[in-house]
């Protein structure tokens, strides 16, 4: 069918306690303006809540934003909870103030892409568009 025209659904979530949501909201809007359906879950969510919402919304990808430095703990937990819910194929992207060393470690733990400060929105939207489910 019209597979390439399929509308993509993404969930943008902020795990942890950091309330700086400027980036997450700007990304959410930019994705909408690039034709995505964006589910925004708000700030201060647990990784498990985010994973559960992602499953119910049957999203094509999950985007996480976190500026407090807790990414090493919280990002992989989202991936874990997705797996536990039989949704390990949903790709997860992370963004925030993330040092080089952590980027590598996060990728090893199943975070598909990691964006650091200064990335253009266009680049981020393209990444979401190009993502394929795990194993596809």
């Amino acid at each position, binding site marked *: 069918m019209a597979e390439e025209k399929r509308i993509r659904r993404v969930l943008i979530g902020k795990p942890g*306690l950091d309330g700086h949501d400027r980036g997450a909201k700007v990304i959410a*809007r930019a994705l909408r303006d690039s034709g995505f359906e964006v589910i925004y879950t708000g*700030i*201060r969510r647990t990784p498990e809540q985010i994973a559960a919402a992602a499953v119910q919304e049957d999203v094509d990808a999950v985007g996480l934003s976190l500026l*407090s430095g807790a990414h090493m703990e*919280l990002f992989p937990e989202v991936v874990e909870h997705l797996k536990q819910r039989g949704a390990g194929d949903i790709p997860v992207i992370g963004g925030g103030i*993330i*040092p080089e060393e952590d980027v590598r470690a996060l990728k090893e733990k199943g975070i598909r892409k990691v964006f*650091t400060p200064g990335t253009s*929105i266009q680049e981020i939207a393209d990444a979401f568009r190009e993502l394929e489910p795990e194993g596809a």
Partner: protein
Amino acid sequence: MAKHPQYKEWEEKTLGKALQKMPERKAEFKTVGGLQLPRLALPKEIDAEYIQKLGFPGEYPFTRGVQPSMYRSRLWTMRQYAGFSTAAETNKRYRYLLEQGQTGLSVAFDLPTQIGYDSDHQMSRGEVGKVGVAIDSLADMEVLFDQIPLGEVSTSMTINSPAAVLLAMYVALGEKQGVDREKMRGTLQNDVLKEYVARGTFIYPPRPSLRIITDIFEWCGQNTPSFNTISISGYHIREAGSTAVQEVAFTLANGISYVQAALEAGLDVDVFGKRLSFFFGATTDIMEEVAKFRAARRMWASIMRDRFQAQNPRSWMLRFHTQTAGHTLTAQQIDNNVVRVTLQALSAVLGGTQSLHTNSKDEALTLPTEESVRTALRTQQVIAHESGVPDSIDPLGGSYLLEELTDRIESEAWELMQKIEDMGGVIPAIEQGFIQRHIDDAAYTYQQEVENKERIMVGVNEFKSQEEVKVPLLRIDPEVERAQVAQVQKVRSERDEQEVERSLAALREAAQGEDNLMPPILEAVKQYATIGEICDVMREVFGIHEE
């Protein structure tokens, strides 16, 4: 030129009195080339419009500054703040700073503390000690201020929703040290309204939050009169993406809400009014920033004098701290940030700030290195001692452009504030998402302008270089969290459980009624009740706020 009578009056009365208390730093101020700088440059003709809009420094409407001689007598306070992960490590740094002659301390707390969760709460996982120090109970406070005489320092705490708890811990510790409450000095951020729209560390719904804040105003007025009870913050609103006009409008509207709440609680506007302070951001857009600071001063003076009928001119003054705008710093070509910070700091000084934090070039990415912190401080010192800008009051005052911008910011901010008034005030405006929508829209517009190069960001979308952007490594040892969790559990196992229960029950009763919350909170912290336990009692009574 004959002196205008009002100028003469200012010179003799306002300025004269001020200079007696605090003489100017030098006998005369000169340019590098030897020209004498006037204290206050004035138009050829001082007309009614000048008096009404600009007036004289230290006098209503304070457009040109809140002190009569401004930086000619005393420079702004150079206050740099820093956060470390553990109480013990932070204590070490504080003692080092005090030995170096610093008298003001500044505490950054981690997010669980700021949201009233104990370190072993499930929401705290991964966040303990990350953006500041973790405080669970008085025991941690004892470590944080070990061997620091609380009667001799002034401590600024970036704490909002649980401000009453941290204040109580600070006071309890002071009592243990035998310090008079009257002698305790410091500043609480305590500005919860902006948390709902910008920073996100809210706990309770807005109305009970306002009650806690007015309880703090009242209690401090009677017990710790030297504490600045609130720092009404536009900084975070701006960082969240607002425009300068929105920053002024939303911040002053929040200020109005606090004053109204305090008046409704029966407090005297001239008692709490002079303990209100403000906190703004400074971006690189120099002229707009200078205009913003001046407009905000003029507006607040009128709000306090005309609307709230404050009698004491000190209640009319908008005194503010400035931080250079973190969101303008770029990960690309990181040295460019030093230049940005310089321009931003300059705008704050030209705008008459009372204190200033200059960001380090790497501050947006990591805990700054010692070297970059030093450069940030040197930036302020260069402006203070080499630029000549502080040597004449409100040096840009009278510029056609500046005055026009000041007027424009003022009128547009009034307009926005009127819309908020029409909705019934800030709380309904927050509930309806009005303020959030304005901030989000502005943030999105800004980003789009950067994306399509209508707004040039040097090194980001133009004048790029090949270098790879690298975020320097900052890893808070996960051991910090484990140790802190063990510590809070140890405190809970060693205290008198019955006394804790009793004190929390008393707090619950006060919260359900109308008594001031500070005394029962103080009692609870003395029994080593934890911040989570205390906040949970209030969550039970007040409910929680959901985004």
